């Protein structure tokens, strides 16, 4: 080990003495890293949960065309034969007008093929009462939770749905009656965006409302779990006729995911300031150390040390603080993440607010998902910032001339 690294270690961790200065500096960096890990992981967890919810309600891929898909059996055959594909289910989706006990609403109607939808999605998990989805027929619907709330609808209520085709018919002076449905269940996913107003009915009912005949708007596709998503979609698109194209869930939800990512990035940069402030404390304690050790620095010069080596000695101290703080911070961060739900519930219990928590947050358990990319970014940024903090003290130390340093008494 070169002498400047040896001395850097000894100055940080002196023989037989508790290293207070070092401990404080390391703790500062560790705190910043810990908070960064926790927050980016929880935010990543939200993103991950949302991905799961999207995939569990729509499948990973949606095959669409500019108008409607006409030869549905052929398209399904082609999709199901694609190597990365596990299952496919056609759907019709579009806005309708709904009347329930005199209350109007303009939800989205999603027509599902009851026989195949569960091969692609896990919608039934979110439906109550249990089994309602499988029993769905052409005269019944399931309402999303938010819609149930705004309409004040109950199980067994009758609702009326008006097709947008109504307008066309009115122009031709035709009488067009709404279609009546019975509410047989509600669907609660647990996320604002996904629970917003949607009516779930059968594919046939939707085709009727939209006058589609046997055509559909699109096909939801589930991929085989081991296949890389992008590659599977590329293979699928190569097989499909030109007018059909499969979109990965990320593309379909790009805007929403962008906002989510932006929030995460902003959080990251705000919290990075904790590390930057910790780096200032590293810098000031190293500057104090340079001043306190002026004479020893002079002596090192007298022993034949070069200015560059003296600078390295202080840079190395900042680097070691950065590495130790980051290691400790990563460990503490994952430690807190491991007990996050106990912590959250403990605090909620203490404040007797467990119910409020469940009501106002989309998840009753705090999700967490650490992306390797985020972890690497945090580690590299924290170590780099701490090491940069050592440059100024190192420069001050290197600038000391041994004669002047030794004269300092």
């Amino acid at each position: 080990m070169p002498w400047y690294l040896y001395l850097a270690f000894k100055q940080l961790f002196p023989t037989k003495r508790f290293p207070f200065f070092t401990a404080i500096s390391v703790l500062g960096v560790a705190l910043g890293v810990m908070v960064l890990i926790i927050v980016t992981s929880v935010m990543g967890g939200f993103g991950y949960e949302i991905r799961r919810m999207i995939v569990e309600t729509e499948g990973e891929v949606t095959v669409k065309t500019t108008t409607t898909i006409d030869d549905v059996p052929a398209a399904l055959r082609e999709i199901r034969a694609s190597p990365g594909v596990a299952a496919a289910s056609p759907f019709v989706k579009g806005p309708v007008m709904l009347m329930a006990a005199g209350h109007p609403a303009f939800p989205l109607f999603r027509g599902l093929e009851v026989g195949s939808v569960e091969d692609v999605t896990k919608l039934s998990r979110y439906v109550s009462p249990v089994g309602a989805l499988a029993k769905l027929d052409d005269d019944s619907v399931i309402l999303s939770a938010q819609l149930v709330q705004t309409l004040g609808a109950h199980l067994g209520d009758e609702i009326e749905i008006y097709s947008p085709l109504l307008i066309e018919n009115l122009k031709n002076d035709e009488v067009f009656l709404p279609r009546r449905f019975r509410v047989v269940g509600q669907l609660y996913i647990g996320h604002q965006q996904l629970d917003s107003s949607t009516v779930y009915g059968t594919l046939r009912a939707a085709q009727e409302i939209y006058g589609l005949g046997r055509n559909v708007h699109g096909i939801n596709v589930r991929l085989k779990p081991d296949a890389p998503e992008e590659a599977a979609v590329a293979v699928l698109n190569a097989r499909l006729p030109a007018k059909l194209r499969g979109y990965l869930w990320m593309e379909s939800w790009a805007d929403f995911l962008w906002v989510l990512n932006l929030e995460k990035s902003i959080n990251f940069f705000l919290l990075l300031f904790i590390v930057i402030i910790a780096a200032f404390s590293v810098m000031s304690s190293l500057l104090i150390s340079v001043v306190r050790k002026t004479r020893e620095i002079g002596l090192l010069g007298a022993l034949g040390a070069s200015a560059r080596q003296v600078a390295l000695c202080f840079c190395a101290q900042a680097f070691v603080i950065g590495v130790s703080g980051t290691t400790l911070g990563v460990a503490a961060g994952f430690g807190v993440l491991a007990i996050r739900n106990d912590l959250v519930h403990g605090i909620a219990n203490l404040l007797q607010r467990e119910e409020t928590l469940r009501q106002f947050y989309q998840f009753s358990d705090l999700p967490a998902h650490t992306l390797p990319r985020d972890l690497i970014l945090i580690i590299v940024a924290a170590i780099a910032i701490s090491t940069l903090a050592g440059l100024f003290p190192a420069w001050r130390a290197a600038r000391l001339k041994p004669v002047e340093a030794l004269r300092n008494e």
Partner: protein
Amino acid sequence: MSESILSARGLAKTYLSGDRRIEVLRGVDLDVAAGESVAIRGESGSGKSTLLNLLAGLDAAEAGRLEWTGMPVTTADATRRRAIFLGMVFQAFYLIPEIDALANVLMASRILRAPGAADRARARDLLARVGLTERSTHLPAQLSGGERQRVAVARALMNTPKLLLADEPTGNLDEHTGDAVIELLLSLCRETGTALVLVTHNIAHAEKTNRQLFLHEGVLR
């Protein structure tokens, strides 16, 4: 005793203090032979420390020539050559407080290379010769002034230098301890054949060396 290891000719140094020029050294000539001991006395502020710093190559002279073992010293190679050619002892010891006595001695060779078994053995041997075997794992703060200066002497001799420069090494010590340190310094230099330039106020100490010089008005007599 005739081979000259240090040769200084016409060394001059001026300090600017405000707009006043202080001519501290105005042409110092000095030759030190291998193994020889030289004492330099002089009033406080006469430039003794300035001269030692010039001889050590820690500071550049404005005029004059300096040679170590017959080779001119330039600022570019002084740092590299210094560790091998000379050792220094100061009034204020300047031990590194975070490491123990043995590690302080070893520090001198550490700057040249990663210490091996031979270096460790030599450091231990030197500590034994200054009578501090028992104290080798003590931190500087746990040592008395005299003990600290003995560690500093061991450190200065660690790289088997040809020359030892001591700047008032007894200045911070009581009379009795100071005498002991000077005895030790002289006997160690004699044993190892190391030349010594000793700056001191103490006439008794100076008289123990081979040659006594006096720095006055910027020249050495």
